[in-house]
């Protein structure tokens, strides 16, 4: 099996994914990812030289609507704000970007 993901680039991917990996689970994660990516190799056997990628969807038509605020009622905003874990006035309060 060709090693594509090793410990070092797993750390990089996890950081890009904004996920802190539990050190105790790292080995198993590496093994699982390795097996899954190895399984993807099956696709190499398909000739796609003349095929365009497909993004999904069944029928495509232009779908537009007016760019208007669709807030249905004030309580909808209040519900969202009340779900904030910490707030100042009506703004979500979070730790600083450049903290220690």
């Amino acid at each position: 099996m060709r090693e594509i993901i090793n410990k070092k680039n797993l750390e990089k991917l996890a950081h890009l994914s904004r996920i802190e990996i539990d050190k105790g689970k790292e080995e198993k994660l590496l093994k699982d990812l390795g097996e899954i990516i190895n399984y993807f190799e099956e696709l190499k056997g398909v000739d796609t030289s003349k095929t365009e990628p497909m993004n999904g969807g069944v029928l495509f038509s232009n779908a537009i609507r007016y760019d208007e605020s669709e807030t249905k009622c004030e309580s909808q905003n209040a519900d969202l704000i009340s779900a904030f874990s910490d707030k100042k006035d009506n703004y979500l309060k979070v730790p600083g970007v450049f903290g220690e």
Partner: protein
Amino acid sequence: MNIKDLTIKKINEGLKNKKFSASEITKAFFENIKKNDEIIGAYLNLTENLAYSQADQIDIMIAEGKDIGAFSGAPLAIKDNILINGEMATAASKILENYKASYDATVIQKLKKAGAIFLGKTNMDEFAMGASGENSAFKATKNPRDIARVSGGSSSGSAAAVAADMAVAALGSDTGGSIRMPANFCGVVGLKPTYGAVSRFGLIAMASSLDQIGPIAKNVEDAAILFKEICGKDNFDLTSINPLIGEYGDEIINPDFNKIKKLKIGLPKEYFISGLSKETEGAINDVIEKFKNLKIEFCEVSLPHTKYAVPAYYIIVPAEVSANLARFDGIRYAQNNNQQSNLLHTYLKNRGEKFGDEVKRRIILGTFVLSSGYYDAYYAKAQKVRRLIKEDFDKVFDPSADGVDVILTPVSPKPAFKIGEKASDPLQMYLEDIFTSPVNLAGLPAISIPAKTDSLPIGFQLIGKHFREADILGMGRLYENNL
């Protein structure tokens, strides 16, 4: 009143004939839930206040002599990734443990108008990622037919609730088999509609180019009735469209069986492989025999790219997952107890601690297949293979090439497996999607219908042309009527 025998149609008739009230029905279902769900684990949250107020409204209308609609009074279970205003919506994830929805999904709005009664929110694989139901952050739903076995996923609780008479029908979502697989394992009916047939506004997104909401019910007729209520174009989901020719007509609920009998069924040879268990093969062959006795025409067809569906699917899905789940930072939609010294560490900690193993695996895998050095080799390649899979179906269905109208296949190679049997091997779990994921990649409608129910349930799958739910529902009705 025995709730085992009730269907959406019978409840509606019983209410109109004043055999029972909507509150009585609701109470009977909650009593059954309280008796059985501690063992089964189908529900994450019961919405009793909402259910009784919906029931009261129906009873008042009946008392006032007003007409109630054909759907009124149906007590439903709703998968926990579908939003009901004011109710919890966790998608079975710790990162949404405290999230209360602030609006109704479009399907919920439609069902409220139609007079549905919402009993509660059902368990699922976390963010709909799984084939067994074991990836829920809270509990694994047990199969009501054998509690040592999985209920199937990801709409595990919805299928188990219907199978154990803890709801008359349910809503699930299907990205690669998540409605059909648990329906297959629990012995109920599950319909995955055409991509675009049902609005996903208010569905917590997993893989947006594949996700569809659909019904789970005790029989095909109820699945059709529920589908008819939720389908249609919605301005809030721009992928939703009305079917090509007019609206979904009356044929969804009242099929013309003379027309249905003239449809031709294709059997794709790639779906009848060596990995198929003896009991599954036997059950599917019995179904084919029954259709043949009804003089339905069969022919063998080929979908040559079938074996590439699972690897393509498990590249495309994680790619979309890594983008869709970026919004869950443990700060929004959550009570955040993990304030770190700066924002980045807060994200890392929240997402590391509150996402389950399968979710983390898919986000990291998605980040990998989309990264610049690997994009062409994996993601772009998978999208090309996706087109080939869709073209396979197009050819088989092509009327100008004497194509078939419906395709019949197994839903999974084997019946429900034991809880824990595949939980630690993600690749084995992915392979469960072998017969269901091609349908999502091609955007087609498909239904799982019980073929064998005397021991462990085994279902068969009917796949239709785009927006031809009427064909597979009609064929399913024909089968059920002639059992």
